């Protein structure tokens, strides 16, 4: 690791100021992805602003929903009574990611800010527009079996690696951020972005903004929820494809559905059109197959990831069946 300056502010404003003072400064919370990237010289900040002293460690029940502090660890989130009770989808998604050790360190904010695990991004000897804009995308005509089938551009075909974010996108969460110009909230589905012409930008955060919390509104999806992750090992591996499915069922008919996919795009891929298709349909495999077909409209594969075109709809159907309890 290259040497860097280290500051540990106790107040939110001081933390934002400390970041804003230097062009090449970064926040550090759990550090599980950032230190990994720094050791490989993929990211080389000259200053780290340690935000662990900030009071953002709580999960609170508010009117109309639950607020999760940005520094709540992945373990604390997954094991929290309120989360298990009201949003089992989120709890399942978090536990399906990383290892127990990493989840003890990694935070909610940091999980959202993870970088892609695309091999071309991680290897500084190879071209990557995300790491070094203008150098080209090595994955486009290279080894692209882990890569996107939706929303990519000719500049970048990487996928976002977070499981937690897929569940939060499905649950209509919002992200609260604070910056030099004050506070604002961002819909979770607008927090991450598609690569377009600027794949170096993963999110729509403005310069020097800090994630302070995530809010999940009350919703009737606790009973019928399933996070299904397909990967190459039984545990501790990134998703090839994952699906967050949540249903509100009444008299064997679907009142509302929430669906999002991971491992298929540069951001958590919310399936709004498939959700609409499911509304009012009977709970059956046929309904779920129809929704999966709608979800897959516009999917396009590369040389090595054509398997995802078949795997994704099957994963959607299986996740919906599990959520509905008809497996």
């Amino acid at each position, binding site marked *: 690791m290259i040497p860097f300056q280290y500051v540990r502010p106790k107040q939110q404003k001081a933390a934002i100021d400390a970041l804003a003072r230097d062009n090449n400064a970064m926040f550090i919370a759990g*550090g*599980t992805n950032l230190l990994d990237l720094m050791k490989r010289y993929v990211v080389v900040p000259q200053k780290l602003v340690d935000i662990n002293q900030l009071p953002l460690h709580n999960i609170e029940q508010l009117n109309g929903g639950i607020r999760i502090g940005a520094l709540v660890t992945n373990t604390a989130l997954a094991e929290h009574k309120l989360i298990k009770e009201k949003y089992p989808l989120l709890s399942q998604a978090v536990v399906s990611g990383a290892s127990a050790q990493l989840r003890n360190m990694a935070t909610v904010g940091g999980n959202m800010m993870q970088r892609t695990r695309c091999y071309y991004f991680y290897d500084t000897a190879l071209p990557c527009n995300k790491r070094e804009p203008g150098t080209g995308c090595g994955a486009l005509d290279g080894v692209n079996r882990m890569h996107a089938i939706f929303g990519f551009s000719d500049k970048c075909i990487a996928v976002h690696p977070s499981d937690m974010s897929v569940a939060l996108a499905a649950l209509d969460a919002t992200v609260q951020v604070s910056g030099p110009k004050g506070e604002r909230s961002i819909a979770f589905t607008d927090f991450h972005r598609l690569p377009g012409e600027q794949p170096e930008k993963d999110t729509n955060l403005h310069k020097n903004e800090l994630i302070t919390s995530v809010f999940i509104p009350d919703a009737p999806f606790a009973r019928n929820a399933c996070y299904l992750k397909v990967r190459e090992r*039984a545990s501790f591996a990134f998703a090839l494809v994952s699906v967050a499915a949540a249903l509100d069922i009444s008299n064997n008919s679907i009142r509302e559905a929430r669906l999002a996919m991971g491992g298929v795009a540069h951001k958590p891929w919310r399936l709004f059109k498939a959700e609409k298709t499911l509304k009012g349909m009977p709970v059956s495999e046929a309904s779920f197959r129809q929704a999966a077909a709608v979800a897959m409209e516009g999917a396009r594969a590369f040389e090595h990831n054509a398997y995802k075109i078949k795997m994704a709809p099957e994963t959607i159907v299986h996740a919906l069946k599990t959520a509905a309890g008809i497996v």
Partner: protein
Amino acid sequence: MANRKIVATKLRANDLILCSSNENLMAKEENSGKILPESRTDKKYNEARRTFLKQSSLLTALALAPPAVVKAAEAGLDEKVADQFEKVPLSLEINGELKKLSVEPRTTLLDLLREQLDLTGTKKGCDYGQCGACTVHADGQRINSCLSLTVMQEGKKITTIEGLATGDELHPMQAAFIEYDGFQCGYCTPGQIMSGVACIREGHANSESEIREYMSGNICRCGAYPNIIKAITAVKKGGKKV
């Protein structure tokens, strides 16, 4: 290497100024003896060069100023500050013993344990948080010590494999790994044992599949998994306090 030697110093709290170190300056001096284009030998160039040299010596002087100057500048912001190469004093309780340490900000907890404290029981496998050989407990929670900066652990209680036994009496998990032959080469074993203890404490050792899931952050390339699971199961069923 020369261009890596960037000296950072602070004039005011808000300005971080970077200047290249003496190597570059000397290169410029050497160049000045050679034939330079007209524009570079004129008065304007010399003045600019003189100003640069003046500023550089000022910056060098500030760079050599004790770190306290840097500290004072940031102190108003209620921050803990360490400059790039500065060693930060801090206290950590390691295996029940309070240690007064001095570390660079980039020192990971793993490197501190192995290189400065000679606690080499904690292993460096991948150094990227993928293998679990470096697992230790921080305030009772298992973490990958390779992915944690020592400065970020300040004030915490760290337990390593060396701190698990009570005197000559092995911890039940250590004894079980021997009894059930939970290793072959032994390199991953300290991490497996630290993780196994945490797995039981967390309440995630209730079935074989649960143990497999919650031990997935510890890789064993010899493939001793069946016996590792037997050892953890035996400790869990034995009911002893872990």
